[in-house]
């Protein structure tokens, strides 16, 4: 077996290609240069996907602890070390990041008209930083990646977004930056108390602190991660950012960035501050139940497709936080599964909206109708995705929602019932969306003339749908990978 630092390669390769694109491809408007930049981006994301698939397949699910660990000391004075590694939990997200980035790059080939070079640059940077976040085992390194993700996302929303993009970009940046400064203070305090940023050591040392201190640290970190997730009442940046971002930006936002919050709950908050987490779990569960119901109800009232899916994200992430803070094995497994599933499903939904938008140039639900007549393939794929989002058994959404509801029910039956009620609401708005857009009479003669999916659109969407079906039928693979890290 080759002894390559594959994990580092999957972080550094996108970074290196981003640098290559910046420095060596001159910024001319000629088509040739743009195509060249595109080749570089596609090649780099394909290679990264191969690297992460290699990680996924050579990962030993029976071994406890982290694999592919690399550790170099960096800045001793502030405890920073280059310390990365994956366990089953982070591996799934690393793979998801690589997959979605490739899909985003492919999906944007013909839809982005201006500044394609910078666009690809941002996505490659985003990929590198996200993989870095998921694989850091040093808390300061984690914070660094966590924070620097803001830069490419801010630019993506602000430059290639919709009409109100400037406002949305500023809101996104300031909101999340506001959250992360609390995380910064918390980790500095942790370092001043323990003298290490090594996550494994912190898992042992931090629970020794007094409960009062733990609680304050917990609140600081919780605000930061809850804004990322986002949990009501910290969610208001999400609809703006989602609606204004370009299609691929929404995909990354829903598919990866929201997951960082949930991932951080499991990786940082629960093991490091277990007592405080337990003490606050009740409130978080209620907030999650609120998120599920509130998100679904607000989604029901939306007339904009992207906004509806954005609010459905709030509801779906409610299952995630609820599952995590139920502290049951089933709930946690459900939460992780739900995150993966939501990463696939909401990405696919945003891609569908993007494809419709490309053809009709509106995201108003009312302007659509009868798309099925001209776009049968899109309609059937959309149907599968929509049903997965609703939680139909046999598709990915069901497993995650079911397990996390079971977890919540075990702790508090009322919350479990509320969450289960949310599933019905979820079905209401998704079915309504599907009915109005796909079925019904053809509202606009333009719709009858739509072309069905182009090749690049098929390439982008079909892998997602296949995965949605695959992990829905055989959830065992995913659950086995995460079982060891979660039982710890």
């Amino acid at each position, binding site marked *: 077996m080759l002894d390559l630092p594959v994990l580092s390669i999957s972080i550094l390769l996108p970074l290196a290609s981003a640098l290559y694109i*910046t420095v060596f491809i001159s*910024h001319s408007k000629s088509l040739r240069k743009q195509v060249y930049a595109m080749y570089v981006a596609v090649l780099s994301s394909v290679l990264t996907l191969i690297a992460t698939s290699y990680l996924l397949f050579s990962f030993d699910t029976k071994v406890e602890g982290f694999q592919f660990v690399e550790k170099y000391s*960096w*800045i*001793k*004075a*502030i405890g920073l070390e280059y310390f990365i590694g994956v366990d089953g939990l982070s591996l799934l997200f690393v793979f998801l990041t690589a997959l979605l980035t490739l899909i985003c790059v492919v999906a944007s080939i013909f839809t982005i008209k201006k*500044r394609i070079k910078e666009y690809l640059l941002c996505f490659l940077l985003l990929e590198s930083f996200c993989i870095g976040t998921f694989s850091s085992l040093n808390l300061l390194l984690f*914070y*660094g990646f966590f*924070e*620097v993700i*803001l*830069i490419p996302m*801010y*630019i993506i929303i*602000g*430059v290639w977004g919709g009409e109100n*993009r*400037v406002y949305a*970009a*500023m809101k996104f*940046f*300031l909101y999340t*930056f*506001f959250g992360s*400064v*609390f995380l*910064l*203070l918390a980790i*500095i*305090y942790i*370092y*001043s108390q323990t003298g290490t940023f090594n996550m494994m050591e912190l898992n042992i040392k931090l629970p020794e602190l007094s409960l009062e201190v733990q609680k304050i640290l917990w609140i600081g970190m919780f605000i930061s991660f809850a804004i990322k997730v986002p949990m009501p009442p910290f969610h208001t940046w999400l609809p703006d950012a989602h609606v204004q971002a370009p299609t691929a930006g929404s995909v990354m936002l829903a598919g990866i960035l929201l997951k960082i919050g949930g991932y951080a709950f499991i990786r940082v908050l629960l093991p490091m501050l277990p007592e405080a987490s337990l003490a606050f779990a009740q409130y978080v569960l209620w907030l999650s139940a609120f998120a599920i119901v509130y998100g679904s109800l607000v989604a029901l009232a939306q007339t904009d497709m992207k906004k509806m899916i954005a609010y459905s994200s709030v509801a779906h992430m409610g299952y995630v936080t609820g599952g995590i803070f139920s502290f049951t094995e089933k709930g946690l497994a459900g939460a992780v599964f739900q995150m993966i599933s939501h990463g696939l499903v909401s990405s696919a939904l945003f891609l569908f909206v993007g494809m419709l938008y490309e053809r009709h140039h509106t995201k108003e639900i009312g302007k659509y109708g009868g798309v099925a007549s001209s776009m049968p393939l899109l309609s059937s794929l959309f149907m599968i995705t929509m049903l997965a989002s609703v939680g139909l058994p046999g598709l990915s959404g069901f497993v995650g929602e079911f397990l996390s509801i079971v977890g919540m029910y075990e702790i508090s039956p009322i919350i479990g019932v509320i969450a289960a009620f949310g599933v019905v609401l979820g079905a209401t708005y998704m079915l309504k969306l599907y009915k109005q857009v796909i079925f019904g009479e053809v509202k606009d003669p333009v719709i009858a003339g739509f072309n069905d999916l182009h090749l690049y659109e098929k390439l982008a969407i079909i892998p997602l749908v296949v995965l949605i079906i695959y992990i829905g039928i055989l959830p065992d693979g995913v659950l086995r990978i995460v079982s060891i890290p979660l039982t710890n």
Partner: protein
Amino acid sequence: MLGQFNLILPEIALTVVTLFAQVVAVFYRSSLRFITLALIVALIGIITGLLYFVPQTEIGFSSSFEVSSTIHLFKALILGLTIMSIVLYKELRKISNKPIKMEFVTLMLLSTLGVFISISARDFILLFCGLELQALAGYAMAAFNVNEVKSSEAGLKYFVLGALISCLMLLGLSFLYGFSGSMYFADIKTVLNETFHMGLVIGAILVLAAILFKLSAAPLHIWTPDVYEGAPIAAVTYFSVAQKIGVLVVLVNFITLVVGDYVRISVDLIKIAAVLSILIGSLGAIMQFSLKRLMAYSTILNVGYVLIAISLHSDNGLYAALLYMFIYVIGTIGFFACLIALFGPKADTASFADLRGIAEQKKAIGLAISIIMFSMIGLPPLAGFFGKYYIFYNAILQGEIFLALLGVLTSVVAAFYYLKVIKYMYFMERTEELTNIKTNRGLLMISVFSIGFTLFFFIFASSYLI
């Protein structure tokens, strides 16, 4: 036999070189560019000398003038930043097709001489002379564009307020002398820390006020935005870069060598100034339109962070303060270089609206300014993050959680206006054509240095963070 003149060789060399260049420039008006270049080479020679001949810590001239390896390092640093300001000025004149005015360069170097003297001074008379020399040259530089109302106004404001604060400082010195019978730092420290006499305290506070004024810390910051807006951009660069570092070193000297452990001044007063500066710097900048005014408020804010570190009253805190200031000024000088490269002679009045859509036409400059802005926001892995991190880290280590909390919260507010720069450059469409300015070698060197430092600090940070 030079005797103790050894100690002031750098100052002598600086004076001689400056005055010689000025005299030559009077006679050979046609080859000003060459003279400036030769002057810069000579100054680089002085820097090399400063770094090469590292002296033992030694105090001379009736123990009023000290040299040490640290002081030499700072002098070299300040002279280096001064050279960069001179290069900015030279290139600006070249872009505007105007001859270099040697007087401006001379004033800048004389001001640097003042900085040199004041950071070596261990006696208040000498300190006062140094600060005055630095300030007087500064007033003249601020008012250098005599044809422009704003510039004259800036010079006048700066002068009136500066003269007032100098008077107060003299009053403070009289108090100090009257109640201790000495002008030496060491003597006053002994008396102050033993007797806590009210007169001495008043004296020390007045001197501190003068230093804070020059550092543009709130509540003595009022002059900063107006002077920054009116003064020529090269002068602003000098004020916010070389002079700021010099005054910061003076403040550190004053705190460690004079005030010592009298915490009412060395901790409490500094803390008040820090909190005020942070609040005024972050909130005041929100509604600004002029980029130079923005930088003025940004300076006030960052001086606030530096003061947090100083108020910790520990070696690590002082080190963090100096490191942060250094990182900040390197970013600032890169920003001003980019502004000049973008707007040339119009850089003096550049506002946010002028930045509209710049990134479309000037990709490299857009990227450079964004990197500096992200660094000033404090995003990892840029240099600004490490500076801020180090300050807050020391603050929390010493239990100053409130100050750290205030610091991070205001950095969110500050993020708003730094992002505004990026927003105008990248998210807005440009309506009018940009006057095309040819790529300029001097500006390019400065900005590449600044960006390189900001971007790659994390690679060699391990040797700077202790």
